[in-house]
């Protein structure tokens, strides 16, 4: 099993946000998580990736049969957990190229592999850029600085493609995207999809799920998953809203 979350309780500043959440993701599966604003979807992503300030008061997070509750965020990342941020962060003065190279080398170091040569690295960048249709010049710009909303989201998928994670969490990567950009993002995800890795796709819109077809859809409400089903659940939600689940 790739990800196994058991009775997870998470508090921020002493306020409980996740209240006993369970989720299991196997290799090769795509899970969609939907739910009203403020129900804890991003909190879940933060807890899985180990963000500071998200205190696990109860429960466990297992990643590939390893308990990761206490693991450093960069270690989780190097083991294959990736988050496409709902709000990607700008890092002024740090070029995308430099950033990506540092990240990739960190991963190589972690895996005991030799450092990526400049040549190999640039080749890889070229390849992955095409995948997400990113303009070449973005790579010479500082990380996310002055990127449009859509560019930021594409840039997240580009990074995902570069780092080739085994578990990718996409937090509203579709929000604010036009239909073409949405297809690009979906293409990036589908290209990475394989029997070895899994996806958790957080979204408010059934539309994304036309392009990234989920195996399961979960509905989150007040810090818990209150309903799970197949992809048809997304349509039902689109039609009826969330009220009937409360």
């Amino acid at each position, binding site marked *: 099993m790739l990800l196994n979350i058991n009775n997870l309780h998470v508090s921020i500043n002493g306020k409980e946000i996740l209240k006993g959440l369970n989720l299991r993701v196997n290799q090769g599966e795509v899970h969609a998580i939907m739910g009203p604003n403020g129900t804890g979807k991003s909190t879940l992503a933060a807890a899985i*990736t*180990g*963000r*500071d*300030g998200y205190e696990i008061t109860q429960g466990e997070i297992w990643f590939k049969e390893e308990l990761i509750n206490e693991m*450093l*965020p*960069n270690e989780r*990342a*190097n083991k294959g957990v*990736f*988050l496409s*941020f709902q709000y*990607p*962060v*700008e*890092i*002024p*003065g*740090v070029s995308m190229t*430099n*950033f990506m190279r*540092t*990240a990739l080398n*960190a*991963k190589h170091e*972690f895996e005991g592999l030799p450092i990526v040569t400049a040549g190999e690295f640039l080749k890889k960048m070229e390849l992955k850029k095409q995948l997400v249709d990113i303009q070449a010049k973005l790579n010479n710009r*500082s990380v996310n600085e002055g990127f449009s909303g859509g560019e930021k989201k594409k840039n997240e998928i580009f*990074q995902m493609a570069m*780092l080739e994670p085994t578990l990718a969490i996409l937090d509203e990567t579709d929000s604010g995207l036009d239909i073409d950009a949405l297809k690009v993002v979906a293409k990036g995800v589908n290209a990475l999809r394989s029997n070895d890795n899994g996806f958790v796709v957080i979204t408010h819109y059934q539309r994304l799920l036309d392009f990234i077809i989920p195996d399961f859809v979960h509905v989150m409400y007040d810090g818990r998953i209150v309903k799970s089903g197949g992809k048809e659940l997304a349509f039902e939600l689109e039609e009826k809203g969330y009220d009937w689940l409360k």
Partner: protein
Amino acid sequence: MSEDKDQNNILEEVTSKEYQYGFYTNIEMDTAAVGLTEETIRFISDKKNEPDWLLEFRLKAFHHWLTIEEPTWAHLHHPPIKYQDIIYYAAPKKKKQLESLDEVDPELLDTFKKLGISLEEQKVLSGVAVDAVIDSVSVKTTFRETLSKHGIIFCSFSEAVQEYPELVKKYMGSVVPYRDNFFAALNSAVFSDGSFCYIPKGVRCPMELSTYFRINAANTGQFERTLLVADEGAYVSYLEGCTAPQRDENQLHAAIVEIIAETGAEVKYSTVQNWYPGDKNGKGGIYNFVTKRGICKGDHSKISWTQVETGSAITWKYPSCILKGDHSIGEFYSVAVTNHYQQADTGTKMIHLGKNTKSTIISKGISAGFSNNSYRGMVRIAKKASNSRNFSQCDSLLLGSKCGAHTFPYINTGNETSVVEHEATTSKISEDQLFYCQQRGIDSEKAIGLIVNGYAKEVLNKLPMEFAVEAQKLLAITLEGSVG
């Protein structure tokens, strides 16, 4: 590529030589008594076989120094400096010579490794015996020959006093008079050595002049004096310092740097200062009180200061420009990093005297730990300096909540046609940025290095290539251990 390699080899040889040089001086003979009296100054001047006019200059400076007090306006705190406990003239001390790198402080070696300093150079810097491989006299002459072909003089200050007394006499003290301030008076009285550089009319110095190549200076000492003259239409880029940590036992440093740019001349002066900052608890470290000033004497001249300050327990330093010539340009680009208990009070003065003069100030202060980092800058536009312009940007970045950042800008505009713009920001290193990096697999220490380098990029870009790479690593290393 091979040229680079050659340069590296030469660099290594030269630095080895410098070190060796310190070893065959007779220590007993060349040490002045403790304390500072007129006798001390006569002793120094005599040792250096100086002409009378220089002795007189020193004595005047000394008598002036006696009448003044240490400045207290800076945002700095330190125990009183006991000026009468210092030895003002000593040949480089013979440190205990080590047999191999195994005997060297592992922490120091670790830093060297991170900076990518070659093994041979590591030995030199940490005091391990090194065999002089090549006759350094020949290295010395190669550089001398190249420079002298262009009529460039680059030698130690003492040598210049003997060989080019008229030039030294004409320019020394013309930008930083001994009356300028307490530390300038002290330096003028007791300076031991330093560098002298003269670029003749119309000459573009064909290489970056680095103190590395100035063989005569045995150690970049406590009371150094640098005099740099670019004659009409000349150009020079000058690199001061060394990115490797310098363990110096002298606690007080009071240097002077004077730059003169004649009509149409341009001087780029870059410093990477990495003196010993003291330990994590604020014990030890260098007190660095430096007076650096340049004058754009002629029309259309330009002086540009770039500094990366990461070392010293205390930094008191304001590289400044007097823009006397019309259309002259002054620039100041600075990154100052303080960690643990370091204190820095640094900035610049831009004094606009000529018409249509222009100055730019970019200052990036980064503080961590319990440190204090102040920017202090003055922009003065004289009445006659019509149509002048200044742009200042002072940014402070805080890592953690126990450090301090302060900005003290003084602006004085004497006419209506000039424009002064000042922007200042203070920010904290954002937890969002840190987490973003960590989520991509980058550990928090590397992440801070990355973010801080990005923050300082505008200034780092102004450094010559040779310096830029090491300076970047240095920023990261200085901030190690600044987050939990």
